[in-house]
């Protein structure tokens, strides 16, 4: 498993080809809907990793195997990153049924490394459930949302980060809201009711009343079963409403376009007729896996760029 992730992260041409083959096979052979993919996002210190630890303790005894991708921001000036989440999920330390991989967000503003996308694909093929932890800074929510089936937003009571979050107008992304550190008392209940009221006000694009707001105490292990039920219920609703396929398909589109844009810039995208045309192609083309398509489109852009020079 670790080698597969190393491979998927490798930018050398020969290794890239190998990785492509692997990812291509994985995607084509993956049964639908496969392992649930769940994102956890929220301000630094909200308790995302501690929640994951509690989730490990909740889900492992039931026999589920779990994979966690923990993404931390990279320094914009140096490119370096400090990855310190795994130790917070210590319950899985000596358990082969729990796999944790830390990743740096690399060149994207608080966003996700391209390799996180590949990592999720790889891990979903081998584990019963995949979690992705990212620091929420406002812009990254849409990135994670594109990567997962269910996005959980973790709020810290009393810090105002939930309020800011609502103001930023990104309330539409999360499918489940968690107010963690419920053991802190009144502040937690207050934050929860603030969230509840704005969620039910219908600021969200998708079915407002369905988004759950759950109080948890990750450190005391409280509310975790409810959180699991809420995540599972959300996904079940997607499956029942035949919406999961559409969600994954949109996610694929966002990932692909994002990756091309990062590699070749707006200028590169123009070579293939601009964003809209490209999106159309991506949306329609289901002949190959997303990864193969990315490679193919990349080549086309490179060729076009070569000609135009």
């Amino acid at each position, binding site marked *: 498993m670790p080698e597969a992730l190393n491979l998927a992260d490798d930018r*050398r041409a020969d290794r890239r080809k190998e990785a492509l083959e692997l990812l291509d096979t994985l995607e084509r052979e993956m049964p639908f809907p496969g392992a649930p993919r769940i994102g956890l996002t929220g301000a630094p210190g909200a308790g995302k990793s501690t929640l994951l630890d509690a989730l490990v303790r909740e889900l492992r005894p039931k026999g589920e195997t779990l994979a966690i991708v923990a993404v931390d921001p990279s320094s914009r000036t140096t490119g370096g990153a400090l990855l*310190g989440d795994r130790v917070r999920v210590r319950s899985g330390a000596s358990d082969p049924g729990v796999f944790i991989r830390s990743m740096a967000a690399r060149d994207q503003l608080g966003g996700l490394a391209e390799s996180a996308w590949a990592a999720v694909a790889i891990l979903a093929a081998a584990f019963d459930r995949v979690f992705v932890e990212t620091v929420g800074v406002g812009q990254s929510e849409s990135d994670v949302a594109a990567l997962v089936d269910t996005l959980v937003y973790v709020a810290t009571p009393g810090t105002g980060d939930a309020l800011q979050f609502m103001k930023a107008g990104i309330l539409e992304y999360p499918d489940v809201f968690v107010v963690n550190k419920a053991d802190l008392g009144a502040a937690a209940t207050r934050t929860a009711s603030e969230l509840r009221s704005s969620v039910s006000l219908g600021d969200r694009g998708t079915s407002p009343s369905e988004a759950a707001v759950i109080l948890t105490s990750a450190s005391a292990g409280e509310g975790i079963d409810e959180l699991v039920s809420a995540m599972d219920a959300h996904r079940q609703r997607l499956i029942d409403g035949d919406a999961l396929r559409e969600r994954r398909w949109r996610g694929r589109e966002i990932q692909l376009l994002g990756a091309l844009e990062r590699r070749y810039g707006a200028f590169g995208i123009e070579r293939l007729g601009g964003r809209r045309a490209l999106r159309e192609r991506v949306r329609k083309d289901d002949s190959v896996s997303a990864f193969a398509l990315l490679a193919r489109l990349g080549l086309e852009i490179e060729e076009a760029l070569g000609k135009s020079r």
Partner: protein
Amino acid sequence: MTAPENARRDRPWMFRTYSGHSSARASNELYRTNLSKGQTGLSVAFDLPTQTGYDSDHPLARGEVGKVGVPISHIDDMTALFKELPLEKMNTSMTINANAAWLLALYVATAERTGADPKKLQGTTQNDIVKEYLSRGTYIFPPEASLKLIGDIVAYTVDSIPRWNPTNICSYHLQEAGATPVQEIAYALATAISVLDQVRSRGDVPEAAIPRIVGRISFFLNSGIRFVEEICKVRAMAELWDEITLERYGVQDAKLRRFRYGVQVNSLGLTEAQPENNVIRIVLEALGVTLSKKARCRALQLPAWNEALGLPRPWDQQWSLRIQQILAFESDLLEHEDIFDGSRVVEEKTEELKREARRELDVVLEMGGTVAAIENAYMKQRLVESQTARARAIENGDITVVGVNAYTNAEPSPLMDGGQSILKVDESAEREQIERLVEFRSKRNRADVESAVQNLEDVLRNGGNVMPASIRAAHAGVTTGEWADVLRGLYGEFRAPTGVVATEGTGGSQATTDTRDRVHRLADTLGRPLKILVGKPGLDGHSNGAEQIAVKARDVGMEVVYDGIRLEPGEIAASARDEGVHLVGLSILSGSHSVLVIDVLDRLRELGLGNLPVVVGGIIPEEDADKLCQAGVRRVYTPKDFDLTRIMSDIVDVVEETSPAP
């Protein structure tokens, strides 16, 4: 020269030497020798398994038993430690924290067993857990539970052992972790406030006892090489303490508001290079806490000249004891009133420190006090920042450290004695201690032990005071590990935040930029950015080095997995595999490198990672370094490698050497 006939001399402070090693018996002998040389108080160093609540035969204790202190697993060990020492007359300071209640219980039980009156016991349990999360690293339980345990000891001793200092609020360790004087003052006072607030909020302490309790709170300070500033720091702290105890706790009796403190002078600044210079540093630092009568310490312990090399031998400690004796008895230090009274410079500096410390104290209090500021990592992050600033200043020469970054051309030191200049703990100490423990266990009354353990659990579950039940357990023959297991079961275990994430070391020198370029170029060869794991195996809590390495590695563009202190070798190896790192860097300062590094190498090999390069840093004597390299370690770094950028560039070399050509 003799003192004038009629000069009135103040009583000197208490002379202590922080010591203990191998076994209770060996340490007892050492204490008696030390006392015979004119030491006036005892200061017990426990080994790391004892400090973290493990019996000597616990797997985590491997390689650590009797190393950096004395192993105490049960009442017979404690009795042997104080054999023939008159407990009613001794003043004993115990550096024990997470399980302070347990070691105090063993001490009380030993007194009772040997016919001494517990009411007459005098001494100190360090018992400050806040600074364990921030610096010292021997915490076990979560902050809230820890604070309750501190409160238990305070509430118990106030009537039962009235001359005991139940908690010694420490700023010493904060400075060793990089704290500025302002941070030292603010965080220590914040800690004292959280302890007193805990005590005040519990039901079992009458309001009327609060002033007496305030009067029993003592402090443990550091004194660094900037000794003029240190004098002002102590004065500032004393004045702020007077204010706080009056205003916040309503203590009217000025005597009970007095700032009582002991000191160990700075060790962080003691160097491996030209180690003889350390003696001069130690003397100057001692002046910082003795010169000003108003701000003079109650007790003093000095490190030794070979601090950065390893554990001191009796002779090394004796030399430091002599410093104290010469200061107190030969010089005229103790003959004068406060020589700084009326000094404008001292007053202004003191006021400035007070002002800034008050501001920082308010930040912590507004956050909700020390518990909140530990959990959200605020204080730890500030300390790592300060330490990073210090490391950088040494690296680019803004701070002069003689023998390290200046005046490095020197004669070989005759003190070095071919590398034999430190204490070597006998390898058989661990085995013998375990044999004694196994025998002790087989001889005790099982039923008594079980009922004492059950009683302890019941009492704590109902929120009762830990002390009486622990004393009963001590008599019954419960062991250190068993006691701690009960509490671990009830309270859970805690991992403190590492504090490294927030520190962004910007820009840097040309060398830093060059190294960053190398790191970025290496990513092309490797196919992905250079990713390393910085690991701290074993019970060692020394985190400064690992933190600085982690921060610097990030600043030169590496992706760094750093998960804090006290990890098991198997855990580190598994992380290295799962994270797909290119290199593992281990940091060990507690002296257990031989066992732990080999263990990590074995685990890596078991996982098929025998080729993954491993480097090691810490207090590693040269001959051990050679052995580690023979076992497969690529590089060994010690304190003399102060240039972090150079270390980084070296790490790039190692990865280049070992990674297969593209």
